[in-house]
């Protein structure tokens, strides 16, 4: 490794703290193509998040995760604990989607859709409206305490707190019906857990988006760390075009850069000022970069003012930089083996999950044979008793009819018409009788067929064994 040329002078050492106080970052406001996209995603995700719990479906909240009764309601779908596999599938889909997007476009999720980015964006907008632009904020922080400073800071934290509490309230509204929650809030009758989670989520939102900001991405977030491992030489990343930009330096608009021996970078520092993580993209790709493309928007505006072509900082790939590839080649390489494999696995899983959800039966049955010896009646026929745990996953009460197959003459001598209330379970004892000699001594395979009387498509077959004493 090269060492700093200064090192040879220095044999002195001083003691310093291993830990440093965070240097506050004051991102400059900007507009542009990518900034607009980020705001589109802010609106999109937050309308869904804040609006979701207020929707109604079947006289209930459309999206509700009822932990107390262990049922998840998602519009027309009611998921039971037995459907937990779908949560695993959802996580697998999310993970694969992250792999795919990251392999194609770097930290796209971080830059545009991550809640940390989204809420930071909202909080920074509030900050800007109240305290003013970047330079005004820096000045305000430097000046001594005054009535104006207290007012501005107080107002900012008040608005932040309100947004954060509303976020916490909304979050809890996914678990406790939000209309009820709102009523409880009005009457100051919130339960202890509800209060805790509203405050906890509120505090987390306020702390992360208001205070921690880029430090969450730099020091806490695991995805930020391992997304770098998904990059390859054809991944689109935010890149400063060194060959075009260097040597950098200020110049007049009138001169051609080549005449004064300069590159296109005028060293205005906009790209550093807009960066939410406070890095200088011109030093190359760094782990702090969340791929938000703020520097691209900032630099493009400057290039426009200078009448230089845009894209001194742009989304491009390592290959494109080293081999001077054009746009077409970059796009061609987006469809490389790696991304195609990700895409096909992702597609297969999504299709499988969708099919499975579409074919999902709103009825589940478990058959448990009673322990103990089967009863032999006076005429030699054999009875076995089963307990059928029936779960009606539909939101209306249903009547089911049970039949038994597998042994000639096997009949159900108990009640075979079973009513199960809406979205509930019921354990039903069922007595099956097999005439004398119809089945072999020992264990015989039988099948229970359970069918909805109103809806022929709801039909479940469950295996069981029928014991005949030897």
């Amino acid at each position, binding site marked *: 490794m090269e060492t700093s040329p200064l090192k040879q002078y220095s044999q002195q050492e001083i003691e310093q703290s291993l830990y440093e106080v965070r240097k506050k970052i004051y991102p400059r406001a900007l507009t542009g193509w990518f900034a607009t996209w980020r705001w589109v995603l802010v609106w999109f995700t937050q309308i869904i998040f804040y609006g979701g719990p207020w929707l109604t479906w079947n006289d209930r909240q459309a999206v*509700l995760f009822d932990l107390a009764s262990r049922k998840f309601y998602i519009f027309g779908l009611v998921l039971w604990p037995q459907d937990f596999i779908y949560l695993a599938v959802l996580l697998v889909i999310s993970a694969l989607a992250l792999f795919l997007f990251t392999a194609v476009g770097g930290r796209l999720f971080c830059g545009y859709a991550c809640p940390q980015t989204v809420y930071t964006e909202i909080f920074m907008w509030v900050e800007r409206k109240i305290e003013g632009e970047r330079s005004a904020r820096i000045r305000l922080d430097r000046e001594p305490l005054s009535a104006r400073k207290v007012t501005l800071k107080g107002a900012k934290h008040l608005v932040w707190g309100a947004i954060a509490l509303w976020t916490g309230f909304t979050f809890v509204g996914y678990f406790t019906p939000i209309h009820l929650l709102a009523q409880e809030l009005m009457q100051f009758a919130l339960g202890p857990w509800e209060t805790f989670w509203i405050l906890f989520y509120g505090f987390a939102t306020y702390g992360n988006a208001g205070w921690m900001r880029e430090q969450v991405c730099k020091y806490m977030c695991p995805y930020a760390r391992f997304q770098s491992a998904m990059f390859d030489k054809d991944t689109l990343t935010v890149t400063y075009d060194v060959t075009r930009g260097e040597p950098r330096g200020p110049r007049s608009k009138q001169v051609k850069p080549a005449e004064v021996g300069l590159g296109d970078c005028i060293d205005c520092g906009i790209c550093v000022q807009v960066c939410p993580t406070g890095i200088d993209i011109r030093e190359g790709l760094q782990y702090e970069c969340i791929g938000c493309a703020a520097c691209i928007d900032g630099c493009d505006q400057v290039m426009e003012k200078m009448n230089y072509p845009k894209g001194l900082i742009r989304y491009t790939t390592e290959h494109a930089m080293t081999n001077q590839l054009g746009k077409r080649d970059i796009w061609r390489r987006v469809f490389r083996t790696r991304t195609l494999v990700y895409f096909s696995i992702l597609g297969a899983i999504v299709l499988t999950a969708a099919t499975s959800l579409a074919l999902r039966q709103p009825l589940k049955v478990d058959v448990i044979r009673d322990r103990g010896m089967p009863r032999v009646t006076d005429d030699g026929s054999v009875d076995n008793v089963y307990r059928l745990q029936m779960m009606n996953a539909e939101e209306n009460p249903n009547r089911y009819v049970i039949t038994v197959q597998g042994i000639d003459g096997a009949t159900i001598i108990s009640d075979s018409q079973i009513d*199960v209330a809406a979205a509930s379970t019921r354990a039903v004892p069922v007595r099956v009788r097999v005439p004398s000699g119809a089945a072999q001594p020992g264990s015989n395979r039988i099948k229970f067929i359970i069918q909805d009387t109103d809806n022929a498509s709801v039909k479940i077959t469950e295996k069981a064994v029928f014991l005949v004493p030897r």
Partner: protein
Amino acid sequence: MADFFHNGWSIFIAVVTLAGILACGLLLWSQSKVKVKVGPDGNPLPVETTGHVWDGDLVENNNPLPRWWSIMFYLTIVFGIAYLVLFPGLGAMQGTLGWSQVGKYEQEMKAGEEQYGPIFAKYQAMPIQAVAQDPQARAIGERLFLNSCAQCHGSDAQGSKGFPNLTDNDWLYGGAPETVLASIREGRHGQMPSMAAAVGGDADVRNVANYVLSLSGSSHDPIKAVMGKTKFGACAACHSADGKGNQALGAPNLTDKTWLYGGGINNVMEAINKGRGNQMPAHKGILSEAKVHLLAAYVWGLSNKQNAVAGISASDAKTMGSLTGTGAAPAKQ
């Protein structure tokens, strides 16, 4: 505190725990300073790398850690000490909050009692016949029965060999609601001694068995039955002279075709030769009085079907009844 057989161990554990926490704090504090080289101007030099190089050009900078991170580390130590003061964890120390697993269990049971107690109390105050007609009570009763009784009497309460059928009108001890309640609460101990000696030899046993079978019109050898009738006197003490049994003793009725241990000559002879012993455990210590009351109503209702309502849902929850409860966000005890 019975966790330690000697107080010394408790102290030993406490010392190790505290020393560990202290050592973590000291390590953190002692390593919080680092020597940096300064340039000729007295300012620290730019950040150096750790000297590791990967893939030809990938290096690791030796950047300082964030201050808040080390503060959080100290806070975890404070939290740890606070926890050990408040909760049990330091040797045999109980913690100032007095929390214990048993206490937690009792608290949970109390909360459950407060939540469900009124429902059971309501039914306990009602006569058994009235409870048996209440759909909600029967639904609760059914679940209680499946949990506590179905192991022996079967899921459909029809019993099996040695375990009485509870759905018919044939009772060993009588089918009055109070009797059923007494059976569940106090248990039953049915005993028939071996009667082989009392009736005579093997031939006599076979004859008596045939006579017993004749009482209910089951298939039997009429000649042997006539011979056995004279020996039935030994049995009449409990089963009464006409064989109708005696509910005060729990002696079965021999004139019907309900057989606790199965009918047929071999089963009856086995009963005479070896006797029968049968025990239903008392549930007064296992189930609360209110639950016993509810179960008695359920069992009594099984054989008094004129009040039965067809197709009761086992769930007394209304369609979305659970949604009007006080749900909590991620956890609800």
